[in-house]
């Protein structure tokens, strides 16, 4: 069976008081080990609505729709890189800047990532394709990102082989600074207008 890969990552300038990170975290923490397609749609509806509330402060982002034999590899690569990079141990946190993970102790940003591996030409694949059909000039606008994020609850999860959601940082104590974002590892991100 052939697959398509769809991935979207958005950097949100999160105000510490707005509780966005905490609310997203709580939603993710509540996910079940098993999910039916309806449960999955319900989860994404809530999660994506929360993310899109912050559309005005989407700052950087990246999205990709890949319809080739590399789709599975692409999905695995994204997942493994993110899962491997998430600061999750106590020793990775702290108030001092960590040269490996964080260049500054400012904690102004959160990063949300949604990844899908879909049956090629299946209903979900077609939905993404339809929603991603925007002029090139609009590829990197906040509006387009919000539209693509809002696509997740529309997917027919009967035709989604795998999906993943990540939120960085993983807790209230750690964070991502502007130095982190503009410093190197995130250079693939595009400025959103």
């Amino acid at each position, binding site marked *: 069976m052939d697959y398509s890969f769809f991935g979207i990552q958005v950097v949100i300038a999160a105000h510490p008081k707005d509780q966005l990170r905490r609310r997203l*975290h709580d939603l993710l923490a509540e996910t079940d080990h098993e999910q039916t397609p309806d449960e999955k749609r319900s989860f994404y509806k809530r999660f994506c609505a929360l993310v899109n509330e912050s559309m005005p402060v989407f700052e950087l982002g990246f999205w990709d729709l890949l319809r080739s034999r590399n789709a599975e590899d692409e999905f695995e690569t994204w997942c493994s890189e*993110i899962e491997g990079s998430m600061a999750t141990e106590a020793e990775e946190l702290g108030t001092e800047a960590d040269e490996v993970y964080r260049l500054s102790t400012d904690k102004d940003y959160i990063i949300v990532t949604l990844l899908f591996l879909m049956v090629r030409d*299946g209903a979900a694949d077609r939905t993404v394709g339809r929603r991603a059909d925007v002029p090139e000039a609009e590829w990197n606008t906040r509006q387009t990102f919000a539209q693509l994020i809002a696509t997740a609850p529309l997917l027919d999860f009967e035709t989604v082989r795998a999906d993943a959601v990540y939120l960085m940082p993983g807790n209230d104590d750690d964070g991502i600074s502007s130095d982190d974002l503009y410093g190197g590892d995130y250079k693939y991100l595009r400025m959103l207008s």
Partner: protein
Amino acid sequence: LSDQEDKGPDENQAQRRWHGADEGKVGARWWRDDVRAAETSGVNRRKILQGMLIGGGVILAGGLLATWASRDDDTVVENKDSLDVQRAEGWNVGSADQALMYPHRERGDVDGNLIAPDSLKTLGDDLSPRQTRFKPFYVPTLFGVLAQNDVHAQELRAELPPILTPAMQTAFARGRAFAELFKATNAEEKAPGDSAGLADLPGPEAIAFAAGAAEVFEPVFLFDNWPHPLGVVKSHEVLAAAAYFRPVFLRAAEKRAADAPAMFVTDRTRLAPYTDETAQFDNRYMAKVPGAEALAALGVKHVAYVTPQGTEELDDLNEDFVALDKASIDVKVVEMEDFQPDPESTEKTVYYYGGHPYFIPLFWSSYGWYAPYRSYPAAPGHRAPPAGSRGAGYRPTPRPTVFSGRSVGAGRGGVGRAKPSGFGRVSVASSRATGRVVGTAHGRSGSFGRGGSYGS
């Protein structure tokens, strides 16, 4: 770190393979082994992906959209009452895949307590009038959606957050100030119980105003629709506001006088413009206010029609108000703008008629409904009294509206009125075989029906 959860797949369920949420990690990855292969029939015809581009974009062509009118020959297109369709198919009929958006979410209610979704089932009961004489006029429609047992209502309850907007905060303070006017201040003085309020404010503000006034006025809610993701009327915000203020209403009910006057409460956006059948859902409704006979039976001689600003009633109330006037029930407008905080005080959350307690007597002298016994200190010379309320000079006059001449009932105004044609209705496609709704006109550019669940 990554808790591999390689259990055997159950049918129709995605298995979580990685989960980082237990120790500060936040993320999840699911996998399923029984994905449905792409349908081969029709795929080429409807194929919309024409290419690919790695690294930030896609090349796409096509843009094929399902055309609802030509979907199949087994359906018939009908125009039905929106609420009837929602009751039959779920509140979010045709848009089950779209989320409601809530402004200014709060984590808990007014007391800071988290709201259990199932507790919302009783919201309608909690907010119903305590006095038997008001119960016939209570319209439980909107709150009733939370008491439904279907999966869609369950989802609505699960996702409903309490909200508190800045406008709601102001409306709450003004509700308290309005109620203060009607309070008896000593044993000799009887509160003006022959008056009723009709708060006609944007939904969440109407709830907040009623909450602010609830220790003096018994709220009687008139919300007569259900929310919808594409709804013209954002009634889900009314529900969210009511969830926030529920403890206030419950406490006020215990403190309020047993014969407290009524505050009828409706949503001023109920007649919002409906312009695009494909992008909107018509959940508009008409306010069902008691008629002259019923109000007289309740002992009501005066009605304070509370508006945000302006002294004209909404179209659906014109005939009702004219009828009240003919029956010698005095209707006057009270503009929320007439209530302001004291400009010389640092306390900006307490509002007064005219901006200071000094000016409360001016309300009664303007409206002429009541002569309070209590004395008030004279206003200091440097404080100019507010200009007279424009609302006090209001008198309903008949004017042609789309609702004119549609009274088919008798007695309780509004209850028996007919809607104008096309008002509060939705076009649906129904199965010829079963009669079930298989699609709706709204949101038809891309999906037809309940997120593809029907008839695809």
